[in-house]
């Protein structure tokens, strides 16, 4: 019974792959419907949203070694927090800069009259 149960369970990787594949198609259709006049704001806003990579940086910046870890592991966690800090700063430039510059550009597009 146990063997059968494990045989039918699907690796979670496959679910992520499914989300990713479907999102590629969504992206394909959504981006084709973007008017060419807004291609520059499109690039600016994609910059901003791809900085959602900050979620990884936040986890890194808050990484703690378990109590009683040896010095080497502690050092590695120290580096991790440092990497996290740098990545947070870099991604924040994009998040704030990307959304704000997009907003600034979009505010300029006006209709006739």
């Amino acid at each position: 019974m146990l063997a059968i149960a494990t045989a039918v369970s699907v690796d979670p990787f496959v679910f992520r792959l499914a989300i990713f594949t479907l999102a590629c198609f969504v992206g394909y259709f959504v981006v084709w419907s973007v008017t060419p006049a807004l291609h520059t704001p499109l690039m600016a806003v994609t910059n901003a949203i791809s900085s959602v990579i900050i979620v990884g940086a936040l986890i890194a910046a808050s990484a703690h070694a378990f109590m009683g870890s040896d010095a080497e592991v502690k050092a590695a966690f120290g580096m991790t927090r440092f990497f996290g800090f740098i990545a947070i700063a870099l991604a924040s430039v994009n998040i704030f800069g990307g959304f704000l510059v997009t907003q600034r550009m979009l505010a300029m597009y006006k209709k006739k009259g």
Partner: protein
Amino acid sequence: MSANLAAILYLVSGVLFIQALRGLSSPETARKGNLYGMAGMAIAILTTLLSIQLSFGALVLILGGLALGGTAGAVIARRIAMTAMPQLVAAFHSLVGLAAVFVAAAALYAPEAFSINNADGSLHMQSLIELSLGVFIGAVTFSGSVIAFAKLNGNMSGKPIMLPMRHFINLGLIGAAVVLVFMLGGTGGVGASAHTLFWALTIVAFVFGVLLIIPIGGADMPVVVSMLNSYSGWAAAALGFTLENTALLITGALVGSSGAILSYIMCKGMNRSFISVIMGGFGETAAAAEDDGVERTVKRGAAEDAAFIMKNAGKVIIVPGYGMAVAQAQHALKEMANLLKEEGVEVKYAIHPVAGRMPGHMNVLLAEADVPYDDVFELEDINSEFGSADVAFVIGANDVTNPAAEDDPSSPIYGMPVLQVWNAGTVMFIKRSLGAGYAGIENPLFFRDNTMMLLMDAKKMVEEINKAL
């Protein structure tokens, strides 16, 4: 916060990002779309903060990073000139790439924090491969974007740099990267040797990114910027797999396909294959064919002549190019259009897909000068209208109006879709000199009878026309 709730909130944030791009289908909905994007980002960040254990030290690091980067970003966004958007976007790409490198490094140094470790502390082979992909693409995005930035910003010549044997060097680098990934897999991601291999892989990717962009000439920059946009998305997606994060996966896929589609549109706008753009060297050989020894005459005009003709025209189509942006002539141009409209002239703008240095660049510059977006038309929508126009007013554009693209199979730009300005009654070219275009190709239109050359700085010339009107 429970892992399931967090996963659902990440999904919500991914959907909001889709909405942000969806909004860009028209300028009316775009502003709302941007707000959706901001909301999506806020949800993703708050969800993460509520899911992790925050010590005081971590909170200081996080708030410090956010404040530092956020302030810099906000200041840049407010101050940047619209002409400099291509450089800014390239710079932003490089930051995404570098952030991806550091996140991947963090996942390798402390897999426990990301729960991707085996019981013995080593990493899953699958995670190692995802992470290697993420760091490789991220590093290529970073160094490639830095080169693109330098070229666009003028810190570096736009001329292609062709290293001898560069294809072999590139293949060698890819081979080295594959070997390093295998070796990294062999270590299980544990210990100093894994860290060394990781940084070696990063350096190989940095070099590869530089070599990928330096042979690409300035005329192909719109493709490069779009391509790096795509890479930054794929880097995020690869790390989305490692971190098992839906928001990151969806965003990576969106951005990756967005950049890929923009690259395709730009390539099509130039009738170039993506492969030939990557191989580089465009704009290097063309200049040689320039001087065939035949003396040809051009008809030069003055501002008063141009003003007189346009005032009496029924319809004027303005064709702006990057030269307009360089001369900062967009505001004077808008004034000219207003003066003409007061005279009862119909004024429209025609934009070529590769005008400017990035997709849609001209539209932003015209919007900045308060040109209503419903006066601005894309190539396929307006090309048939040149026949009914009395004047085609070409300002700072050249190659995108070159008839050689349609009738001279020996021309390097043969087959590229162009704006058929020659069908208009009179073609006016504002240029600083009679030199060849950015791609180094001579434009036979300059020597036609119905062409009037207005040789001066674009802004000055338009201002003089305005005076004469």
